[in-house]
């Protein structure tokens, strides 16, 4: 997993590059980058380490940048991955100040005393949606279409929240799609659709929104859909930890999350 400085991450977006970075996030090791400050005046320099679900990549990146702009000398180090992996890393002692998960089950994997020092709040909700390439080569119009054997469908691995949610939606609808791959996280899943290698994927609504016009969304009706809560956990009460958590929970955070396609909690 590679930690990306918020600035760098936001600059490098778009199809292949994003795929590269996200895919590297799967394999690499952990590094914490320190930031050189420009000003000569004495400054508070500190780093807030944030581990977040891959689906939160865009809103948290822009919020981190916002926080850094407002607090000279503070670096918000971001790392995105599957919630399951992140929770495990925290449990194994990975340094983290703030974590944000897709779905609440990952909370169980955190150490029991994780929130003793800090606190937790739900920052957003998300629903599932079908993503297809912009030209929708498979002609997907509804969830029922996913049962067609000629469609190549990719899902998240059943071990990560987006995969669990997709499985739940599909099994409730009684649909067994022709799954060609179970990707390690939601961004990797979406990348396969963006590259046109798969005809459809069941991903978060927010991912469809943040992917812009590189994918087409096919809405899953509420009756068939499921909703995930996004918990934010701050693990200590250092000023920048709580400061950043408050930014995410506040109106600016809400606005960024809404823009990214998340629902209000």
């Amino acid at each position, binding site marked *: 997993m590679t930690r990306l400085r918020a600035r760098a991450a936001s600059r490098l977006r778009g199809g*292949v590059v994003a*795929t*590269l970075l996200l*895919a*590297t996030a*799967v*394999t690499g090791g952990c590094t914490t980058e320190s930031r050189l400050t420009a000003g000569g005046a004495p400054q508070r320099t500190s780093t807030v380490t944030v581990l977040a679900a891959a689906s939160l990549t865009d809103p948290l990146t822009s919020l981190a940048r916002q926080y850094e702009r407002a607090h000279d000398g503070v670096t918000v180090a971001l790392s995105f991955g*599957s919630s*399951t*992996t992140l929770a*495990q890393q925290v449990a194994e002692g990975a340094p983290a100040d703030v974590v944000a998960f897709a779905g609440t089950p990952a909370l169980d994997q955190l150490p029991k005393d994780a929130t003793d020092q800090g606190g937790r709040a739900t920052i957003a909700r998300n629903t599932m949606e079908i993503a297809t390439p912009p030209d929708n080569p498979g002609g997907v119009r509804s969830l029922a279409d996913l049962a067609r054997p000629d469609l*190549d469908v*990719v899902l998240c*691995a059943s*071990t*990560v929240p987006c995969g669990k949610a997709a499985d739940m939606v599909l099994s409730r609808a009684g649909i067994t799609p022709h*799954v*060609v*791959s*179970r*990707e*390690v996280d939601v961004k*990797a899943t979406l990348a*396969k659709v963006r*590259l*046109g*290698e*798969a005809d459809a994927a069941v991903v978060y609504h927010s991912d469809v929104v943040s992917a812009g016009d590189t994918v087409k969304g096919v809405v899953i009706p509420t009756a068939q859909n499921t909703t995930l809560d996004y918990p934010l956990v701050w693990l200590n009460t250092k000023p920048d930890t709580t400061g950043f958590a408050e930014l995410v929970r506040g109106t600016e955070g809400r606005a960024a999350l809404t823009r990214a396609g998340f629902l209000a909690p």
Partner: protein
Amino acid sequence: MTDAAEPMAAEPVAAGRIRAAGGTRLGLLAPAGLAVALVALPLLALLLRADWGHVLDHLADPAVLPAIRLSLLTTTTTVVLAVVLGTPLAWLLARAQGRAAAWFRALLTVPLVLPPVVGGVALLMAWGRRGVVGGPLYEAFGVRVPFTPVAVVLAELFVAMPFYVIAVEGAMRSVDPRFEHVAATLGASPWRSFSRVALPLAVPGMAAGAALAWARALGEFGATITFAGNFAGRTQTAPLAVYVALERDPQAAVSLSLAMLVVSIVVLALLRGRWVR
């Protein structure tokens, strides 16, 4: 010097030499020991942290056997293809001179240094449903390469073939060209001279290269997950299974890792006795 003086003089010299060697040895032993520890420790930790009581249960998981089977199948195919295609290439490179050969050699080393994930993306660009080759293939025949075992082999070949070619080229380069000169004067065509003289002489190098390529293919993760995806029984190789298992049940991942360790050691041991020293 008289005969009697020699042993007398030799003794202090020898002692001094041993002392000096002792100092040198210590200076070498410390970093050497550290090097061993850095490699051995994680392997040892795998053994120590394994949940031995449940290893068999973990390996009985329905996802495990297909993953190991797929890994063995694809890596074997990869090695066979690397030998069949890579040996002639290694030979041409070993006997080629000039700029073109240097460029080909440089091209071949790229996958060695390229992050495997980048290789996976490159493979998608080439063989994907909308890829340079994969696109027309899909349009004309409806053949989709990604998400298939073929894609796994392509990914493994991409990373392993260069290992093989570079190793074998080195072995073939060290085959004395005068053997081929002699073969030619005896009436052997270039092909016969290659197949009957150069090739047999390069066999140990080819075995070493094949072992290297196999090991690299077995460990292949990044290019596979990017290009071939992850689907149990079809494209989920053992390393991918380990990674996915890690999210569900870390102890199962440890058990699977142990199984891979055993398979690797067995294969390398089988090769070692015969060719790889």
